[in-house]
């Protein structure tokens, strides 16, 4: 028996000018989700159930970029993706290109448990959702006004090099004309949009699990798939750990980041935090990303090489932390 541990994230790469009320809202959500996970863990829920439960909560809330509140494609629509992995047995499930499924992570779980496959996408995934009877909504349920505004700015940013624009939509209190050149995925940080959500858990039996969910990159090409649904990139869990990543999807894919954390633990014998630090430092090249992870020993760790990551973590011995910046 080990002590359980849980970590959640709401995206790496945060606008340093993010208004304080938005920061507070985000922290409240992270806290609420952590507490949800903690209650479940105290009732001996398994890691795989807890990660799904927590990510559902993150998807349902419009603050972060997943489920409702997802970033928009170049066409102004929503295409959501998610993946989930159960460390004991390493079963996994993933979905991409969802347009109507209220909780993508739950559909990913059904792919894992109820289909002969590991990954379903686009119309095939939507058909499966209908067959499974999961809750579905009209595409505009997922679209928020904030994101419509962000999309517009992203399109403008993509055609204007290095012209940092002060965000207007939803950022009424931000009046500072800062010339920050911070960009992620080619967009100024203000329109990059908080990314992806995720949760990793180790339960009191030492079983690890991980889940990640996202709307993807703002203004992405229709059909673009990022790291979140790719096992080994955005999500991974095995006997020794559970990992969920967020940030520049292409860098995370190229670095097979989630698998890498586990691989250096398994093959180099690094401990959890050392593994996270190593991967962030050595495996992202010029990419910007963040990682949360738990180990079978009940440890929790996180790391990021960009400006801020919305995150929270807690362990059974009472430790709890929610943060955004370093």
């Amino acid at each position, binding site marked *: 028996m080990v002590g359980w541990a849980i970590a959640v994230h709401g995206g790496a790469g945060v606008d340093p000018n993010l208004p304080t009320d938005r920061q507070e809202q985000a922290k409240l959500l992270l806290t609420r989700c952590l507490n949800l996970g903690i209650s479940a863990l105290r009732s001996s829920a398994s890691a795989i159930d807890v990660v799904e439960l927590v990510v559902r909560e993150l998807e349902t809330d419009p603050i972060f970029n997943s489920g409702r509140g997802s970033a928009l494609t170049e066409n102004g629509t929503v295409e959501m993706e998610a993946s989930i992995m159960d460390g004991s047995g390493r079963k996994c499930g993933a979905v991409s290109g969802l347009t109507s499924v209220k909780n993508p992570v739950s559909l990913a779980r059904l792919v894992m448990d109820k289909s002969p496959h*590991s990954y379903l996408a686009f119309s095939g995934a939507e058909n499966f959702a209908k067959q499974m009877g999961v809750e579905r909504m009209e595409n505009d349920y997922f679209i928020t006004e904030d994101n419509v505004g962000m999309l517009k700015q992203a399109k403008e940013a993509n055609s204007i090099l290095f012209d940092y624009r002060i965000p207007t939509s939803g950022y009424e209190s931000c009046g500072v004309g800062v010339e920050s050149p911070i960009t992620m995925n080619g967009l100024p940080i203000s329109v990059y949009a908080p990314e992806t959500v995720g949760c990793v858990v180790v339960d009191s039996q030492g079983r690890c699990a991980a889940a990640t969910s996202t709307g993807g990159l703002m203004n992405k090409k229709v059909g673009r798939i990022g790291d979140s649904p790719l096992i080994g990139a955005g999500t991974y869990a095995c006997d020794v750990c559970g990992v969920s990543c967020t940030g520049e999807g292409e860098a995370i894919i190229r670095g097979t980041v989630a698998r890498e954390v586990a691989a250096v633990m398994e093959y180099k014998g690094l401990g959890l935090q050392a593994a996270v630090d190593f991967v962030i430092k050595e495996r992202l090249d010029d990419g910007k990303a963040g990682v949360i992870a738990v180990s079978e020993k009940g440890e929790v760790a996180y790391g990021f090489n960009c400006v801020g990551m919305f995150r929270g973590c807690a362990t059974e011995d009472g430790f709890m932390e929610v943060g955004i910046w370093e």
Partner: protein
Amino acid sequence: MGWAIALHGGAGAIPVDLPPERLEPREAALRRILQIGVSALNARCSPLDVVELVVRELENCPHFNAGKGSVLTTNGTVEMEACIMDGNSKRCGAVSGVSTVVNPISLARQVMEKTPHIYLAFDGAEAFAREQGLETIDESHFITTENIERLKQAKEANRVQQDYTPPFKPEDKKETPVPDGDSKLGTVGCVAVDSLGNLAAATSTGGLVNKMVGRIGDTPIIGAGTYANKFCAISATGIGEAIIRETVARDVAAVMEYKGLGLKEAADYIVHQVSPKGTTGLVAVSSTGEVAMPFNTTGMFRACATEDGFTEVATWAI
């Protein structure tokens, strides 16, 4: 050190009594296509160009499960996927759900080189192909009578299978809606290294027979079916769901890097000690010109060559 190249036309339960008329065209194709790769390497083409070129040939050949000759979804349609990766830069490109693009591997390369993304799928991938002016054709071009037959058998047996199942006999009907044990071949791939140690990998497939519409396998998942870095280049084949879970391609490279194993040892370790039997085969080359082609299935259509003149074309264990 000289160049090295290895390619495969799928691993699976290829029966040892496969009739000559089914074996010979495949081995002949492997020989011919290997020579194309060899000529390109001798002409000092980059490994990235070589793997794309070779996989295009394999896609065009109707005897393998990629491009023309792709196995069919449960709806009788074709949904192809492909992936390419450059070892030095770790740039990569992948596509899924492609139904009209004559050479999915070339589309994957375009995604890598012409977009800020790595992976495009379904309608988005098809639209991008048209934007880029890639050759497209009616879906019926890819569908062969053999595959229509395979789908029919699979539906009768109510299973999802790779494309090399021996004809189904009613008396040995097993009840497996899960793709397991019945491993046959799937996927084509190529890995290459030049004399400077530059590496590249490419994989392409039609997927599993009778797969659900929208099912994505290991091929387009970086680290699962395809991977290249400065240590090695890997293309895997077998049961996609198992290859994803085992992150096969990445693990071979990881074991080389972190445990200091040579290519053959690393590849053997992953295929024979880690991956479940009957699920996995791969071809691999290393930055020092080594080649490995292990498989834990009955057979794997494969071929390799090194600059010093060694060549091999084979289907079962030697």
